[in-house]
């Protein structure tokens, strides 16, 4: 059956994710959240979750629904859950944001929205993790990229559970000692598990497969790549152990995750060495824009993590090392996300539209669905704005931060428009654009059940 491994709802996840990215950036431009208010203010928490769940996690879950079957060359288990999971996550996020709004003093909202939102999010992420884990489990022994994803799924579940505990405590639903201790001291653990464990380990795993695919580089896993997995696992285990200690032991004192951060830095340095090696060993001489933009994200990853483990720069980065977290979230995770969307959206669109007429009519290449010249300007503006925003956070200048964010928002809108153009086949020249019999893709909904 043609398209047996084409994920039906991935494009809908991507559309929702891009929408939440734009909402998050508009919130920041308008002064919602840090640095206008404190890093732990409800407004900041709402903003952070719009970006971490609405943008990054929806993007990652949508991408995994498509790529886990590719990683293990096996069909996705429980694929019917894809749409319910999307609805659970979006509804849960809106309730969570509403709960934070109530804590910020928005009268029409209620703090009870927090645990309700958390329940939906835990259910949604739990089902997503179950679908993906069942797919991985059935395909053992796993190749290295899939093992990274497995580790990321564990971190996702842990992050969601810690977050749900926070929601119970913040809303006043439950107020036991261990829960309060976790709320007071556990925020860095929640962030490390989510940004480092779930999002970064998963992105690293998928990139170990996608980079060789797109650059025609050797796919065999090197010793360094295995070492990255082991070191990343050890860092994640330390975070998990620290979380358990905090819950179980009333005498647990707050301490920085210095060892976990060092391990993470070692893993990142080895990972960056790996991606440089893949670039050098590629057989495809022409380097497409998605690859160039991805390497800018790798640079942001290396810089943010190395600067984080240096006490002086961490202290200079503001409350909660905000400048470095910003560089990590927008330079690394968001930069890589946008770069990969720039490849995946045209690729999936090509399959939907031209896959069924291949061999019967002349069709364009995937690359013909985009215009790299204009898009490269957007990526340059995006990374330039992220650099400026990071610098302004180091300098403690809120006005410059918002000015840089405005540029970042413009670049994001520009890149989103390029993705929409790719979906609409706007860049494909006639007569290749609509060959006889080729279905026309919808903007973000599946074409028909026959495409599943």
């Amino acid at each position: 059956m043609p398209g047996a491994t084409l994920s039906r709802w991935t494009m809908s996840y991507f559309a929702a994710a891009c929408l939440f990215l734009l909402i998050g950036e508009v919130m920041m431009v308008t002064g919602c959240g840090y640095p206008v208010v404190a890093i732990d203010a409800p407004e900041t928490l709402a903003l952070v979750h719009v970006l971490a769940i609405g943008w990054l996690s929806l993007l990652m879950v949508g991408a995994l629904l498509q790529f886990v079957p590719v990683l293990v060359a096996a069909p996705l288990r429980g694929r019917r859950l894809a749409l319910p999971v999307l609805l659970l996550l979006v509804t849960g996020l809106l309730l969570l944001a509403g709960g934070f709004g109530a804590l910020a003093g928005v009268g029409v909202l209620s703090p009870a929205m927090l645990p309700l939102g958390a329940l939906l999010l835990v259910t949604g992420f739990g089902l997503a993790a179950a679908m993906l884990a069942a797919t991985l489990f059935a395909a053992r022994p796993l190749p290295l990229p899939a093992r990274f994803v497995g580790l990321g799924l564990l971190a996702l579940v842990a992050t969601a559970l810690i977050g749900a505990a926070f929601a119970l405590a913040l809303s006043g639903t439950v107020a036991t000692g261990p829960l309060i201790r976790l709320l007071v001291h556990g925020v860095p653990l929640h962030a490390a598990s989510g940004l480092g464990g779930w999002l970064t380990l998963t992105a690293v795993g998928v990139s170990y497969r996608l980079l060789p695919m797109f650059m025609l580089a050797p796919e065999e896993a090197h010793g360094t790549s295995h070492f990255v997995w082991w070191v990343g696992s050890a860092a994640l285990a330390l975070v998990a152990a620290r979380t358990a200690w905090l819950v179980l032991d009333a005498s647990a004192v707050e301490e920085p995750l210095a060892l976990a951060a060092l391990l993470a830095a070692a893993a990142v340095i080895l990972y960056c060495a790996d991606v440089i090696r893949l670039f050098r060993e590629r057989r495809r001489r022409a380097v497409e824009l998605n690859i160039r933009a991805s390497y800018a994200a790798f640079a942001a990853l290396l810089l943010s993590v190395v600067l984080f483990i240096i006490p002086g720069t961490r202290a200079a980065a503001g409350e909660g090392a905000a400048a470095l977290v910003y560089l990590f979230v927008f330079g690394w995770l968001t930069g890589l996300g946008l770069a990969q969307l720039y490849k995946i959206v045209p690729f999936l669109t090509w399959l939907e539209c031209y896959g069924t007429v291949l061999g019967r009519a002349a069709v364009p290449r995937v690359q013909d669905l985009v215009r790299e010249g204009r898009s490269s300007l957007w990526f340059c503006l995006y990374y330039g704005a992220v650099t400026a925003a990071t610098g302004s956070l180091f300098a403690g200048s809120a006005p410059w931060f918002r000015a840089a964010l405005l540029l970042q928002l413009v670049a994001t809108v520009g890149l989103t428009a390029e993705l929409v153009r790719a979906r609409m086949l706007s860049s494909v020249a006639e007569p290749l654009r609509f060959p006889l019999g080729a279905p026309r893709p919808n903007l973000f909904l599946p074409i028909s059940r026959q495409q599943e």
Partner: protein
Amino acid sequence: MTEALNETVCGAIRDALRMIIDPELGRNIVDLGLIYDVSVEDGGIAHVTMTTTTKGCPASEYLKEAVRNCVWYVPGVEYAEVRLTYEPAWTTEMMMN
């Protein structure tokens, strides 16, 4: 059908398959080395053994179906059978320069 005629049809099949491109690489699947074997039996029964650049790729089934459709319309072919294999796995060394 003589052996010489079968060879002619095999050549025609390879030529016809050059219209099918790998969507990502933008090159035709014959020059990429994705067609491992083409044979034609008496009676015009064509057998094509092919691979894709990546196992599990969502494009795999589309490419297989495209090859079947394409071969079917080559003069001299009465029936087309296409087999997708990953033994051996495709490598970049299989590409024609």
